[in-house]
C-alpha cells in the first residue's frame, strides 16, 4: 500500500493562514460543516493556568493548546475516494495547515500523560534515530 499526498509543498508555501484544529474526545457520526465559532468557541473559558474549559452538549471539557515543535507543520488531509481494501493505494490532498492545535479531555485536566502530548514524543525520538550522522 502506498500513500500519495498531492501538492503538499506548493500548498504549504502558498497558504498563509493557519487553520484552527481542535481534537475532541468523541466522534460525531457525520461529515459536514459545523458552526464551531457560534456554538463552541463562544463558550471557551481560558483559566489562570492557560488551560481552557468548554462544554459540548452539556459535557464538561478541559483543554490545552499545544504548539507543534519547531521545524514541523501540521496538515489536514482529505481523501476523496475511500479505499475498499487496505492493499489499495491511497490518495490525499492537503486542505489546511496548522502550527498549533487544541485538544480536549472529557472532565480531566490536561497533563503530560495525555495521548497527543505523548504522541509528540515520537518527534524527538525520530529526530535522534533518523537524523543524518555527521562525522565529528
Amino acid at each position, binding site marked *: *500500500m*502506498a*500513500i500519495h499526498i498531492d501538492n503538499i509543498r506548493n500548498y504549504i508555501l502558498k497558504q498563509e493562514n493557519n487553520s484552527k484544529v481542535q481534537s475532541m*474526545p*468523541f*466522534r*460525531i*457520526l*457525520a461529515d*459536514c460543516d*459545523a*458552526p464551531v465559532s*457560534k*456554538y*463552541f468557541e*463562544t*463558550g471557551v*473559558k481560558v483559566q489562570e493556568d492557560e488551560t481552557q474549559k468548554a*462544554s*459540548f*452538549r*452539556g*459535557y*464538561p471539557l478541559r483543554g490545552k493548546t499545544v504548539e507543534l515543535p519547531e521545524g514541523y507543520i501540521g496538515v489536514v488531509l482529505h481523501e476523496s475516494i475511500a479505499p475498499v481494501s487496505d492493499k489499495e493505494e491511497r490518495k490525499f490532498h492537503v486542505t489546511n495547515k496548522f502550527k498549533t492545535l487544541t485538544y480536549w479531555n*472529557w*472532565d*480531566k485536566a490536561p497533563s503530560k500523560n495525555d*495521548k497527543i502530548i*505523548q*504522541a509528540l*514524543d*515520537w518527534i524527538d*525520538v525520530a529526530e535522534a534515530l533518523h537524523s543524518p550522522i555527521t562525522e565529528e
Partner: protein
Amino acid sequence: MQKIDDLETLRSFLASKDNTVNNVYFSDVPQVCKDFPCILGIDEAGRGPVLGPMVYGTAFCPLNEATLPDSLGCADSKALNEESRDVIFSKICANRKMGWGVEVIAPNSICNSMLSRQKYSLNQVSMDAAINLIKMALKGGVNLSHVYVDTVGPPEKYQAYLKSLFPNVGVTVAKKADSTFPIVSAASICAKVTRDYALKGWGFGEGLQAGHEEFGSGYPGDPNTKKFLQNYRDPVFGYPHLVRFSWSTASEALKEAYHVDWEENEEVIPIGNTSITEFFKMTKNRGARSLHDFFTTRCLSRKVEF
C-alpha cells in the same frame, strides 16, 4: 458590586453577568440583623425546567420581627401570581429590617455537574448552593439563630448534615417549608422572581435571536419550550447554553441530532495466560512485526509499509 434594590436593578444585574457560570448576589445586611438573633429561610426555584438557571434564594430578618414576611404578603409563594411576586420582591428589597440573597446556578453548570466523570447529582448541587448562602449570611455578620430550608428530598439526613456544618445554628429542613414558614416563602419569592427575570432576559452567547415568547417557561410540558427544542436544534452542537442537556427532555430531542460516540478511556489490558506450548508452535505470520509499546501507548501506528 452592583446593588439590587428593585426589579429594574435586578434586570440589569442579571444582564451584566455571564449567564454560563453561577452568579451570586447578597444584599446589604441591615444593622438589626447583626444586633439581634435572626431567622433565615432558603428555597429554590426552577428545579424542573429544561431551560435556564436554577435559583437558590434566601431571606432573613430578626426573630422578634418574625411576622414581617407575613405582613409583606409572603404567604404560600406557589399560590401567588407573577405580578404579586414582583410586588412583594420590591417590598423585600426596600425593607430596612430584611436582607436577602440569591445564587443563580447556570444551566451549563448543572449539566456539567451531572455529566461529569464522577456524576454530581442535582441534589448535591442544591445542597452546595444552600450551604453557600448560609455561609454568606454568616460572613456578612447576620446573627443567625435558626435556619429553615425547603427540600424536595428526604429532610432528615439533610438536616443532620446542615447541623453538623453549622453547630451553633438551629436547623429545620422540611418539605413544603415555603407554605409553612413565611421567611422561607420570602426566600422562595426572591428565588422565583430572579429565575423568571433571568429566563426572560436571557442573552444568547451564541447569538441566537430567540426571545422569551419563543422558548416559553422552560417546563418540559410547555408547548413553546417543546417547539423551541424542535426548531433550534443544531445537528452537531445540539443547543445553546440555555438548555439543560442532562434533562431527559433534551436528550430525547437530541436523538434527532447526529450521534456522538465518546472516546472510551478504559484500555483493555490482556492478561497473560499463554500456555507454555504456545511458544513452540509454528506460526505463519512470523514476518508481521508488532509495534513496540512506545508506539501503542501513544496511539501511534504505521500507515505505510516500508
